[in-house]
């Protein structure tokens, strides 16, 4: 999962991104945005946005990074921005686990 609407930290980052890039609205108005419209905006998020790196850190394969310092940097980002397991379904947890195991092999 690259983004979780149920995780307050993600939701707040998404709100900040929306206000910075599109229009300054209240949080209440943000929650009332149509979901498809918002997903289109989220899928074209520019690299300059902090949320971009948060989402990237969740899908990046750190072992593919050759540079040691860069690898360390992304590992830290991965740890810091991990969506708590409590939000995930059993299937998603198992999928995350198998991904981790593959990375270690």
């Amino acid at each position: 999962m690259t983004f979780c609407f149920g995780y307050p930290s993600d939701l707040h980052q998404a709100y900040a991104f929306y206000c910075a890039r599109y229009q300054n609205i209240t949080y209440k108005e943000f929650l009332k945005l149509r979901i498809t419209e918002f997903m289109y905006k989220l899928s074209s998020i520019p690299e300059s946005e902090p949320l971009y790196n948060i989402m990237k850190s969740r899908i990046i394969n750190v072992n593919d990074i050759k540079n040691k310092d860069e690898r360390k940097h992304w590992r830290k980002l991965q740890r810091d921005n991990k969506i708590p397991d409590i939000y995930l379904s059993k299937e998603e947890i198992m999928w995350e686990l198998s991904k981790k195991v593959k990375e270690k092999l």
Partner: protein
Amino acid sequence: MKYQFIQKDEDTTILKYQDKEYEIKRDVELVSKLQSVNKDARLSLYADLVKKGISKDNLVITTKKDGKTYVDNSYLDELEKQYIRDEQYNLFNELCRNYFNMSMEELVIDIGLNPDESQKFGTELGEAISGKGTPREKK
């Protein structure tokens, strides 16, 4: 047909029955609530376990046989599933009240559905609320 679900646009479905029409809108808040179900269920499970003075480990049975350790999580898994089902049901009822001003049961009675029809209706309503193409995150 006693009722009809009409897709108005990507994020809006209309429930039509008798002379009534209700709009089901899918917004950021709704998806946030749907994606919080697992968390809310697990938190209330923890809270209830704490109240009863037991920990999650008490529900896991560990046995040793032929030098191997076997862990049986089935009680915990079943209990967690039950809490998630309850939480989904509570959320569904809360959403029903928001959209239709009545609970799921009241809605079924209002439309005049029999038990077989109400099961099919429940599935269709679930799809209308969560949206078939709703942003379930890609793994």
